[in-house]
Structures are given as C-alpha cells and as structure tokens.
C-alpha cells in the first residue's frame, strides 16, 4: 500500500498533461456549442474524439489501432482522473465509447467492428443502448421487443424507454427477444440498428429538472427491418453479453462519480461560511455535523474506489463494482440534500444551468435542490440501488436467491 505511484506512472501523467495542454478543446469552444444529450456530439467533440484517437489517448488501455497505447490499469485510472480535473470530457457519447464499442469489439464480426465500432472511436457516429422497456426495468431479462428473421433481415417491433441519447444517436445497440419460447434469459439477442431506419420513432422524455435538455427517450419500433448481418454475437446469447456490456461500464465509472462528489463537496465547503453565518449556534452545530459527514463520505468514496480498483487490477470480479456504484450515487444524493437543507428556503430558487459544454457528462449541475432531484438519475439508472444491494448480497456475499 502506498500513497504515491511509480515514476513510470508519473511520467505517463506528465506526458498526458503536456499533450492535453497542447490539444484540448478550449472551454470557450465547448461552451459555444454544448453537448445537450449523451447521443449528441457537437463538431468540437467529434474533432476531439478523432484527435484523441489519432494520438492514442482515446482509450489508453487499448492497442494503437483502436485509439490506445496498451496502457495498464493504473495508467488508465490516472488518465481518467486527469481528464476530469482538466474538465475535458473523453467523449460526450459515454455509452457509445464506454459500452457499445467495447461490446462490438468483444462479440462483433470484423464488418461490424469496421462499420460500427471504429466510427465511434473516430468521432464519426454516436450510439445509444436500447435495453429498458416499459415492462422490463430492473427485470431487464423480461424484455419483449420482438425480432423475427425474415430471409436476410430481421423485422423488429416493440418499445424501448429511458434510452439515453436516442434523440441524437446514429445507431442503437438493441436488445430484443428472438426466441419467445425459451426461458427469458435464453431468448435475447443484440442487433445493430441505424436510427434512421424507417419505422423508428423517438420521443424525448423531459426530465424532472432541466426539461429543456432531455437525454432520455422512448423509442418506438414498428416493423423496423435490420440486415441479418447486424446480429451481434451468437443468436439468443444476448443476456450473457448484456452482463459483459455492463461490466465495461462499471470498471472505471466510479472515478468520475467520485470526482463529481468531490466537486459538490468543494462547492459546499466554499459556500459553508455564508450558509452557516445565517444560523443560530445550535442550528450551526447540527449543520456542521451534516457537512462533516458528507466530507467523510467523499473521502471514503475515493478510498473505496482505490480499494476496489486494487482488487480489480489483480483480477478481482466485477460485482465488487456494485459497491462503488451504490455508495457513490447515494453519497452524491446526500451532499446535495445536506446543502439544500442548510440553504433553507433559498434552495427553492430555480437556477439556470451553466452551459459549459458538458451538460451530458456526469457533473453536478444547477442549484442544490436541482442537483438533489437530478442525483436520482444515478441511484435509479444502470441498476437501481436496491438491485445493487441484491447483487452485493448474492454475488459478493454469496447469500441464496430468494
């Protein structure tokens, strides 16, 4: 155990920082044309992705032909931290780069890699992830969007919901039922579906705060034809791939969650003198205790992240990540609530979102109360906190299924 990294890691960091300083998109450029959805890549974001790809900085852990430099896990961790510190998003299309592209590399054909994954890495297209349905949320395996093979193409009918970025994405990594007679986990397949295919209707779902920038969507599929060659991996093997896809997401997601948490805490600590000055001594003591608790939570999130990372780096299992997902998202919620409550009735004022170019990226936005409501995005999506507790109990602690 050590607080500091090896010299080789520090050399990696120095090289990255130097490259970033010379090549990063400017805050002004980002603010002038902000990304308004996780499927939306403004011109600067497309250029930036391409620049990172060409220089081997897009996914450092991958080989050069896929935009990387064969970096190790510790270097990758440093990379994610430094990008977040510099307030530069790796991509505005987080699910495309983080889940869809790696899944296509893992399970797709050479043609699919060429036509779908590589264009994501080059900043040419964005992707969304078609998983949840009105009747299949936490119980994802009960999804009912049907795909029927008809000669050389599939015909898809059904409905997806909570599809982030579908209002801008170029294609969808779509989970559908291909064998309705098989047990629910064994009849699911994945198709790559261009979003401009006739029969697809996207209806944005304005969110609980900032309804002017919806990221979530309903996606209606009505007789949508998809080439047979767009089937990813083996037929009816989609559930196993779904678990693989989400593992891609969980590996390092904690870093940005922790940094978002730290940013919220820093903001709270800087506002604290002003907020506390208005309180009576007793109120102040109670408020200070709440602030200290979230300060401990924040440091704990970072340390827990490193602890889980140490396990992951030596080949531990992905379910450990459920712990970080659960903890960081709930801690984030507590910070915002603590701050809003200390603020009192002033917390009711509606703020304007500072459009600094990465609305779509995992960063605290808006007033404390808005942040509080928005924080439920993280405790509900990608496996609600209750599902994370089940995963921890069953897969990490080995408790029997109910």
């Amino acid at each position, binding site marked *: *155990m*050590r*607080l*500091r*990294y090896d010299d080789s890691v520090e050399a990696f960091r120095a090289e990255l920082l130097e490259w970033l300083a010379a090549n990063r998109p400017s805050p002004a450029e980002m603010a002038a044309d902000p990304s308004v959805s996780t499927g939306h890549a403004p011109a600067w974001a497309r250029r930036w992705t391409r620049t990172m790809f060409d220089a081997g900085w897009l996914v450092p852990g991958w080989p050069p032909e896929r935009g990387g430099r064969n970096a190790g896990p*510790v270097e990758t961790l440093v990379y994610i931290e430094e990008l977040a510190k510099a307030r530069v998003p790796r991509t505005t299309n987080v699910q495309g780069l983080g889940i869809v592209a790696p899944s296509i590399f893992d399970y797709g054909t050479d043609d699919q890699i060429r036509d779908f994954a590589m264009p994501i890495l080059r900043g040419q297209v964005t992707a969304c992830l078609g998983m949840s349905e009105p009747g299949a949320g936490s119980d994802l395996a009960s999804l009912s969007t049907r795909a029927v093979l008809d000669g050389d193409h599939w015909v898809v009918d059904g409905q997806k919901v909570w599809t982030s970025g579908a209002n801008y994405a170029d294609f969808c990594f779509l989970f559908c039922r291909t064998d309705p007679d098989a047990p629910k986990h064994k009849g699911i397949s994945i198709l790559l579906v261009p979003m401009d295919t006739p029969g697809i209707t996207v209806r944005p779902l304005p969110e609980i705060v900032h309804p002017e920038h919806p990221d979530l969507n309903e996606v209606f599929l009505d007789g949508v034809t998809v080439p047979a060659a767009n089937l990813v991996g083996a037929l009816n093997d989609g559930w196993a791939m779904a678990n693989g896809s989400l593992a891609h997401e969980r590996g390092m997601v904690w870093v940005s969650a922790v940094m978002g948490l730290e940013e919220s805490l820093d903001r709270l*600590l800087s506002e*604290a*003198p002003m907020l*506390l*000055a208005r309180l009576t001594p007793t109120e*102040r003591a109670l408020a*200070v*205790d709440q*602030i*200290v*608790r979230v*300060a*401990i939570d924040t*440091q*704990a999130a*970072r*340390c*827990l992240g*490193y*602890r889980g*990372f*140490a396990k992951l*780096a*030596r080949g531990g299992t992905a379910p450990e990540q459920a*712990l970080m997902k*659960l*903890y960081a998202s709930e801690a984030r919620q507590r910070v915002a609530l603590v701050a809003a409550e200390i603020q009192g009735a002033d917390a009711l004022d509606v703020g304007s979102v500072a459009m600094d170019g990465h609305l779509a990226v995992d960063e605290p936005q808006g007033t404390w109360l808005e942040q509080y409501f928005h924080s439920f995005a993280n405790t509900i999506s990608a496996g609600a906190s*209750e599902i*994370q*507790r*089940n995963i*921890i*109990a*069953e897969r*990490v*602690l*080995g*408790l*029997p*299924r*109910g």
Partner: protein
Amino acid sequence: MDFEFTDEQLLLRESARSVLESACPRGLVRSVYDRTGDGHELWATLVELDWPALGLPTEHRGLGLGYLEVGILVEELGRAVAPSPFLATATQLVPVLREAGSSFLLADIAAGRCTGTLAVAEGGSWRPSTVTTTARHADAGWVLDGVKSHVLDGATATEVAVVAKGDEGLGVFVVPRTAVTAAPRSVIDPTFPVATVTLDSVPVDGERVLVAPGDPSAPSVVERAVQEATTAMALSTVATCRAIFEATLQYAKDREQFGKPIGSFQALKHRLADCFLAVERATALAYFAALTIAEDDDRRAVATAMAKAAAGECQRLLTRDGLQLHGGIGFTWEHDLHFLLKRAKTGDLLFGTAAAHRAHLAQLLGLEAVA
C-alpha cells in the same frame, strides 16, 4: 494511491491469523470474561514470535517494520478479540517514545520484558487541549499531579507515558506503573481493561522526561502519537466489526426459518449489504489513515479523524445489526457474539467517539471558526 498489500504483508496477515486461531481461541476470551484467565499465555506466545519487536528499529533489537505491518497485527488481534498488551504498548507507548526521539525502554519492549500505555485522556476526553494534569519543576526534574481516565492496560502495564501540562505547555513523561495509583474500572469488555491513573506528586527526571514542557516539539509529539494510537484503535475496531459481519453473514446462511435460510429474505440481504458497505468504507478510511502515518503525509490529522469517525459509525451499525440478525441466540452469554459486540463498542468509545472526531474534523475543515 495504491491500496494493495504487498506479498510480504499478506503473508504476515496470514501467519498472524493462524497464530491467533490456535493461541487465542474464543475459549481464551471466555476465560478472561469469566475471570479464570488473563491471557498471559497468549502474550508469552506473541513475545516468542517477536510481535513486540516488529515495529521497533533494528538498532534496538526490533524487526524494523513499519506502521502498516503493526496495523496488520492490530487488525488480527481485533478480529480475534485478543486480550493482549500489544495494542497499548506498540501503538501508544512506542509512538510517543519514537516521536520524542527517545530510545528509552525500546530494547526491553522488543524483548517483551516491558509493556506500556499512554495516559492522555482526562474526564473521558482525548483532546490534548483538555489536559489539566500538572508538571511542576522540582530539583533536577519534574513532579506530576493529576488524574488520567480510561488508560488502556493502565493497571497492568509496566510503564505509563503521561501527558501533563507545565507553565510552558504540554510535556510527556514516562513513569513506572508502580509510581502511580491505578484503579481498574469495572468495564463491559474485560479484554480492553481500562484504569483510572492517579498521579500524586510523582517525581520524574532524566530519560523519563521524554519531552519537557516548553520544548517546541511537544505539541506535535503528543498530536502525532495520539494520531497513531487513534488510527490503531480504528483499525482494531473495524477488524472486530468485520468479524461481527462474517459471523452474522454465516448465521444468515445457516439459520433456516419458513423452510429456507433467513439470508434469502430481501429485508436481511439489504441490511447485510449495508453492513458490508459500512465495513468496507471504514476499512478503506482506516487504511488511508495508516498510509498517511506510514508515509508521514500531511493529511494525517484529517485522515485519522475520518478513520476513527468511520470506525465508530461502522461499529454502531454492526453491533446493532449483528445482534439483531442473530436473534435470540446472540442475546445469550453462552454465544460468543457478545465478545465482539462489546469490543467494537469499546473501540468506538476509547480515543474519541465518532461524534468527537466529527467535531474535531469540523475544526480541521475550517467549519468551526465560522460564526
């Protein structure tokens, strides 16, 4: 930050655990509770295995290992609920000697001939600023007067380090236990025996004056030594909590009601997941604090307070849920669970409760000065 233990550290943990499994079975703990034993055979075994020498410098017959290694032994002792002078000697007396730059007693400690403790608390507070025990100049040395509370092993340790206040500020002295009046308190956990130590015109001179009042390093010696002791108490407490967690998890898998293991019910699953999270959270913060001490990082004050606060918060959940989920059997004297529960509770209440450390953090984070 790298939170991975080295192979040597993992090996040390493994061997410590296996030593304690045979030398400190629950039956030994029970004998201490029943007052039919005091754990002296265990201490003889640990001395034979060089445990007291582990963290001491090699020039004083120590093994020259660092705070992380001492911490591993502390965790294993906490896990085993071991009655042992190790914690007070290695994480309370030794740090104050080292911080004062003194080699006094070290060779005797390494050889297991001397045990010790640190008398800093008064009236249940571990903040050095609340010390009222006095140190007066007299002849060639000093004379100490005052009452120290909750001194771990205070009635049995060979040597007692005392934090006292002179006109010029805090000082640290080490006095033989025979020179003080140590009244053992009747406490809920006899494996963590504490005593009230009364100093009635106790003379100290020579090398027993570790840091004299007025020495500019005195406040930092006290603060740093207390940080080591506090973080060690956090490590011990979290390890005990992990043992509670493991026992409770096993019980939830074994105990059947309504025809299935109670651990298959979601109400219990979610509580166990939260307990696991609390243990992991407190472990992570305790390791971070241990790292800041091992590497003398300037975040050590904040890290120590966070570690002890988190250990206390963890203890609060684990003693409650550990007992509740064990049901009636955990409520009995015959079951071993209560040894763990009482040790965890004691660990929170010694060297500052979670609330006391959060209050200290308020000061360190600049929140207390706000008016």
